[in-house]
């Protein structure tokens, strides 16, 4: 009830405001008319009409009509964001229709961007950073997700693209995950596959808490707003956009050694593949390949192998020559991937309304055989002026993602690279394994060179099947009601819904770490629904040329409901029959229901003063179901100021535009961790395992503070934007500093207390960073234009106060230091040299030791477009500088024996049973070191001497992975990637006349080349857990409109 009262109060406030201002000074005539866009003759609403030199003013309604009282000698001033202001003398007319020209967009003072709640505002009036990217930029070159197309284009937005098929790119904005909003409706689930890139009109990135403050807790990390295309007034237009790209080559592929085969300690002899001999352990530390041996029939050293025939006389395996058959296993296994994107859209409109419909299909054929993803979308939207005051707008999109099989990612047996790259010797030719069943045991036993640890990659891709189907629906309905010229109301309801169905078919004889499968089938079905309803009331009034306000108040309610059911067999009675009824042991099943609700009221006031000062204020009050009742309501204020100095000051000639801005916001969140569990504030039992069908429960080790309050971010953001030489060059710089406190974190306590930690409000962090954008048009002639843009950003987080720890630590992080510290446990001397044990292996430190930082120092992007007559060439380059990334692939290559660096004479010695390798580093000769409880050295009297203990090279690598030779597998994350290249030919009108309105053909390329510090893997995803090789995509885009 408190909420309803609040709403009623706001409504009352607004209505009184509106009645107070409806009395206009008397004039002579009533002038009416319609305002149109000169571009497509569509009607324009919200056009401000002022009587010049007076305080009388009005705006056009949704039908584009206006009515104002003006004297015959007076002049009407028509102005609208993004359009050139027009002045029309009344001159006795009672009806004046006006066509307004669209303003030149590089006029910085006229740039319009979409802000929170989908409200369009002049960028110059904003006190915070917003960057808008046009949908055009993703029209030609295609990546599987729309968000992926933003990579490198937005300062502060880090898109970590994966090389793996059908995996979500990870996105962070200023280091945290932003909210996704589609046409004003938050999409907290943020499925990046559900939006058709060709439907996107523009993407607006609201970078910080101030920009996102109106979204409340959801917007605490900023927001990415998608605005989709709408129908346009005018005759029918149809657009067809088709891209086909082929993944033709490797941008980055691991290089493996080809001189030593499977085996251990330099020996290999296949017995049964299951580990009674040298083959079972699965190492690639076997004998040298291609060694001449005149005593054998082949002339090469021979030993028994997995494909040895059985001698019918002795029943034993016949030795085969030990030669390098599999030098190109990786390349021989992969195929050419295809990404094909086709879309068609149609739009038509009249005076009263318009609609647009579109369909798209994305077909992806994976580079891994028998993998692929299809993605189909249909959307329909329209708007209609129901009366002169009431109009509506609605859109509905249906999207279906479906894959019969996509690769499993991460280090482990189901990942084909586990068996194709890391754990296969070049003695095996992968192509010999294509026929993957053992003869006579089809469906029961896979054929492979090792049957204790590894799977045949062809068996994995053809039999271990990950299916995924997901149907998304989303859309919104909006009613706009123009109550008076100054007052309007909007009701918008939007929803996101999906149902998904994931199934995994696990064949007989599939080898996991701790079992060999008897077949299994699991199904996970999920359904999700959220609905958000906003009622927004807007009042705007131009009091004078020097004072102008725009007030919005609203209320919102958001509800979401999520259900999941997981069911799995325990073994399959009949192999290959994937059905729950085929389970050997009882079916295993679990499910959950999650509901969450947030109710809100909010308000916003924009004030423009003296035509150069802009103030923005917002406030929001949320009540959320995800906190204890006594603390579930909280308020978020924000304020911003922007001063367009170039509008008031006479600046030196080169400076054509100068604006400074500042904003402040305090945003709370009642969502614990990422908010996915709405019951995270309630302490409950965990469901335990069953033993022989007896159920069990376990009380959690983590307590929960009973009176949790929301976590808070206080942000301050300061920026300057400047244009030079008639805005040919523009610069935008932003500095932000967020203070994050009352964080809901797990504070550890002695486990002897009964809990290992408590979820509570604690700690203070500071998040600071810079963002820069420089855009320019260095060359512009009649036929040729070069546009270029660079963006750069940096961001780190510091722990300012570990509120609950007397020593000032939170986990390993000490107050005052950055939170992205990496710690390792390998023992090192103060100068960084490895310390060895008496057995010649590197010692382990009893404390976690600081090794480096993981954050990038900078991330950057650089876009260029060259236009010459009908030709245009654009390319985008981006990457990061600094920060360490751990590489699992490289570590496993050294550990297992496939890294080219392991080819050396020590390895030959080890194969001969000799211990000749001395690990680089030192041993402790004398003295001792004392540490405090956190591992800081208190006293150190150690004397070091070089390590001289010679050990067996293979044993050394198996124990240490040669980590000290490879910076402990933390590589500098610095890289530069040629992200995309588009060469477009716009077919001249004289050829298309009568057939198309316009047509273009483009050559397109993605991921074309990479310069990186990190070997063997693509650092784009900023992590490496054994990734698919990075592929280069090239193809053609055709676009025509008629």
């Amino acid at each position, binding site marked *: 009830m408190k909420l309803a009262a609040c709403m009623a109060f706001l409504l009352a406030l607004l209505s009184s405001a509106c009645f107070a201002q409806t009395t206009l000074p008397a004039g002579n005539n009533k002038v009416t008319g319609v305002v149109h866009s000169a571009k497509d003759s569509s009607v324009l609403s919200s056009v401000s009409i002022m009587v010049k030199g007076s305080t009388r003013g009005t705006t056009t309604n949704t039908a584009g009509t206006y009515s104002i009282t003006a004297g015959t000698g007076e002049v009407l001033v028509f102005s609208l964001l993004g359009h050139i202001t027009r002045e029309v003398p009344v001159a006795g007319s009672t009806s004046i229709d006006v066509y307004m020209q669209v303003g030149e967009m590089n006029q910085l003072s006229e740039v319009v961007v979409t802000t929170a709640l989908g409200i369009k505002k002049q960028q110059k009036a904003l006190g915070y950073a917003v960057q808008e990217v046009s949908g055009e930029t993703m029209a030609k070159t295609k990546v599987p997700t729309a968000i992926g197309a933003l990579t490198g284009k937005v300062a502060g937005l880090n898109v970590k693209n994966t090389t793996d098929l059908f995996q979500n790119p990870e996105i962070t904005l200023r280091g945290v995950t932003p909210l996704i909003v589609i046409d004003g409706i938050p999409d907290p689930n943020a499925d990046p596959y559900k939006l058709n890139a060709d439907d996107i009109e523009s993407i607006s990135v609201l970078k910080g808490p101030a920009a996102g403050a109106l979204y409340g807790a959801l917007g605490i990390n900023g927001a990415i707003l998608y605005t989709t295309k709408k129908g346009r007034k005018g005759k029918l237009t149809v657009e067809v956009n088709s891209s086909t790209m082929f993944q033709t080559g490797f941008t980055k592929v691991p290089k493996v050694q080809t001189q030593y085969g499977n085996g251990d300690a330099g020996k290999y002899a296949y017995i049964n593949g299951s580990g009674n001999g040298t083959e079972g352990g699965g190492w690639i530390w076997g004998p040298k390949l291609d060694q001449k041996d005149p005593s054998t029939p082949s002339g090469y050293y021979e030993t028994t192998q997995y494909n040895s025939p059985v001698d019918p006389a002795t029943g034993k395996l016949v030795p085969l020559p030990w030669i390098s058959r599999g030098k190109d296993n990786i390349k021989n296994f992969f195929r050419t991937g295809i990404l094909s994107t086709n879309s068609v859209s149609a739009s038509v409109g009249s005076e009263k309304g318009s609609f647009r419909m579109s369909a798209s299909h994305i077909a992806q054929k994976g580079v891994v055989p028998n993998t692929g993803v299809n993605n189909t979308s249909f959307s329909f939207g329209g708007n209609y002026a129901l009366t002169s005051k009431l109009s509506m707008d609605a859109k509905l999109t249906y999207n279906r993602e479906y894959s019969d099989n996509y690769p499993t990612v991460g280090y482990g047996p189901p990942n084909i690279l586990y068996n194709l790259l890391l754990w296969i010797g070049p003695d095996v030719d992968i192509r010999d394994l294509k026929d993957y069943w053992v003869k006579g045991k089809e469906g029961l036993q896979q054929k492979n060179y090792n049957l204790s640890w590894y799977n045949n990659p062809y068996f994995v891709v053809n039999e271990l099947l990950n299916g995924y189907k997901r149907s998304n629906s989303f859309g919104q309905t909006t009613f706009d*009601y123009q109550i008076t010229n100054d007052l309007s109301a909007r009701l918008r309801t939007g929803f996101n819904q999906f149902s998904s169905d994931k199934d995994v078919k696990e064949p007989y004889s599939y080898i996991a*770490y701790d079992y060999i499968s008897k077949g299994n089938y699991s199904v996970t079905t999920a359904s999700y629904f959220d609905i958000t309803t906003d009622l927004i009331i807007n009042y705007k009034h131009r009091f004078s040329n020097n004072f102008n306000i725009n007030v919005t108040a609203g209320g919102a309610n958001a509800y979401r409901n999520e259900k999941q059911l997981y069911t799995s067999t325990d073994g399959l009675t009949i192999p290959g029959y994937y059905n729950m009824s085929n389970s050997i042991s009882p079916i295993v099943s679990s499910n959950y229901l999650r509901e969450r*609700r947030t109710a809100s009221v909010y308000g916003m006031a924009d004030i423009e003063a003296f035509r150069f000062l802009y103030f923005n204020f917002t406030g929001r009050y949320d009540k959320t*179901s995800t906190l204890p009742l006594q603390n579930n309501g909280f308020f978020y204020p924000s304020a911003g100021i922007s001063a367009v100095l170039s509008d008031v000051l006479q600046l030196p000639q080169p400076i054509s535009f100068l604006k400074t801005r500042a904003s402040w916001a305090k945003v709370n969140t009642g969502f614990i961790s990422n908010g996915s569990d709405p*019951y995270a504030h309630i302490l409950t039992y965990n469901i*335990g395992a069953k033993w022989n069908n007896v159920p069990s429960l376990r009380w959690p080790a983590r*307590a929960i503070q009973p009176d949790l309050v929301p976590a808070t971010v206080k942000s301050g953001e300061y920026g300057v934007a400047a244009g030079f030489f008639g805005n040919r060059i523009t610069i935008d710089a932003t500095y932000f500093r967020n203070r994050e406190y009352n964080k809901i974190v797990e504070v550890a306590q002695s486990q002897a*207390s009964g809990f290992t930690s408590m979820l509570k409000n604690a700690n203070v962090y500071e998040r600071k960073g810079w963002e820069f954008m420089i855009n320019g048009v260095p060359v512009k002639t009649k036929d040729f234009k070069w546009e270029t843009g660079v963006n750069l950003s940096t961001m780190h987080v510091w722990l300012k106060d570990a509120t609950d720890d007397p020593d000032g630590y939170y986990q390993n992080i000490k107050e005052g230091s950055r939170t992205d510290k990496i710690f390792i446990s390998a023992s090192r001397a103060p100068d960084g040299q490895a310390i060895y044990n008496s057995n010649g292996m590197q010692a382990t430190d009893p404390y976690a030791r600081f090794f480096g930082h993981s954050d990038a120092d900078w991330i950057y992007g650089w876009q260029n477009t060259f236009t010459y007559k009908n030709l245009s060439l654009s390319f985008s380059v981006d990457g990061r500088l600094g920060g360490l990334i751990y590489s699992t692939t490289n570590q496993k290559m050294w550990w297992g024996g496939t890294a080219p660096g392991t080819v050396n004479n020590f390895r030959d010695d080890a194969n001969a049973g000799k211990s000749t390798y001395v690990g680089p580093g030192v041993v402790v000769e004398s003295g001792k070191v004392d540490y405090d409880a956190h591992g800081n050295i208190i006293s150190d009297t150690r004397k070091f001497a070089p390590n001289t203990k010679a*050990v067996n090279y293979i044993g050394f690598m198996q124990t240490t992975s040669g980590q000290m030779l490879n910076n402990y597998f933390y590589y500098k994350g610095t890289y530069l990637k040629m992200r995309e290249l588009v060469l477009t030919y716009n077919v001249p009108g004289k050829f298309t006349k009568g057939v198309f309105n316009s047509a273009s053909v483009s050559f397109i390329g993605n991921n074309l080349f990479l310069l990186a510090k990190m070997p063997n893997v693509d650092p784009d995803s900023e992590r490496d857990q054994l990734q698919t090789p990075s592929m280069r995509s090239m193809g053609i885009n055709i676009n025509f409109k008629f």
Partner: protein
Amino acid sequence: MKRFNIIAGVMMVAVFVSCKKFDSFQENPNNPTTADPSLLLTNLEMNSFSTIATDAALASRQLVYTQSSSNAQYYGWQRSGMSYSNISQAVKMELEAARVGKSNYRYLGKFFKSYYAILMTQTFGDIPYSQMMQSLTNNKFDSTATRPVYDKQQEVYLNVLNELKIASDSLSGSSVAITGDIIYGGNIDKWKRLINSFTLRVLMSLSKKESNATLNIKQRFDEIVSNPAKYPLLASNSDNGQLKYYNVTGNQYPFYNSNSMKTDYYLDSTFVDILQDLQDPRLFVYGQPTVASGLPANDFDAYDGLSGSANLSANTVKKGQGKASQINRRYAYEAINEPSLLIGYAEVQFLLAEAAVRGWIGGNAGDYYKKGIEASLNFSNFGNTYSSADIQTYLNQPAIALQPGNEISQIITQKYISMFMNTGWQAFYEQRRTGTPVFETAGGGILNGGKVPKRWMYPTDEYNNNRVNVENAVKDQYPDGDNINGVMWLLQ
């Protein structure tokens, strides 16, 4: 304006009607907040009776690991973890038992708390005990609760012995029956047998403190043994405190189908020697014949081991030549294999035998000892690999009979053999207490200066979350600081 009012009214209704009230979201529909103690008992039993640990076998020179250098095998270990999260489950069970008035669960709770306290004090020395569990029991989160003080090891033992006695004395068949019991199916008598037998183990682990009047271990031991009506003991293998495995995912033998168990675990040569010297048929169920020998599985000469202290490559070379015995196939290929023992009948007999030798109790040490051996052979007789005649032949060997002056060493050797891949770290702790058998440390892979560690360092989380108390505990006990060679009170 009238139409506007109607529309506004409809809008308001649309926004705020059909919403569930906020207080209806304050209950998690997926998980309970209160429960019958039986549900906690099942979980506690699953954890406490799961004692199969390869590291214990590596540290006890029974197994050798060939995939990389193992810190357990080369004595290069550092820290261990604590078990308070399991004690929390026992305490929560006690709280739920008090809530619903099912007192038997409270006494079982005392047993589980004692079990884990002993596990930890044997690992580290002093531990938090008297001040533990305050956050859970009293909902206290001030610094005295979240940073409990450490108690002297002697205090821990004394309290545990008293608690075990209360548990045994108080468990009652006339109270509300125990359900959810996957060990004894709610049989109170068997629980008493388990608790009393475990008490004997705790008392024997204090054998160096025989003369300590506070603890009075001799009298406590005798009080139990001489009063079988009040304090019954495990009387056969069917009374074993053991967790049986089932061929259902998650309920299988922990190394069932483990790739590593199939390829990387070999018998230690010192262990093979002991079994060969005694012509012990358990060799056939513990190991596999070597590939190179070509001999049948029931030939003692078919077996050879790797050296637990030799460097990795020396072992991988010998393994590659097929000259080493892998651990028996059943540990990786059998879903049920053998049950996991918390404490078994054989151990009780060995405890009685040792107590008789030490003069704590009457009775014939040799009889207890042979009953223990026989029980162990029966327990380990996977797939009836050997016959009962084989068992008798084994028992009748002169080398088996207790020899005066050497009894304790023989008893502990048999206990050591019987605990292969079972009963957690008990075999290692028995060796730490008695020195039997001698763990070989001569090879080139050995760490820790060739010394067998006496303990583990306290875990990092205690240094982070309870620093002052853990530092004081270290200062009180170990003059050389928190290291793995410190000699705790128990061993002094």
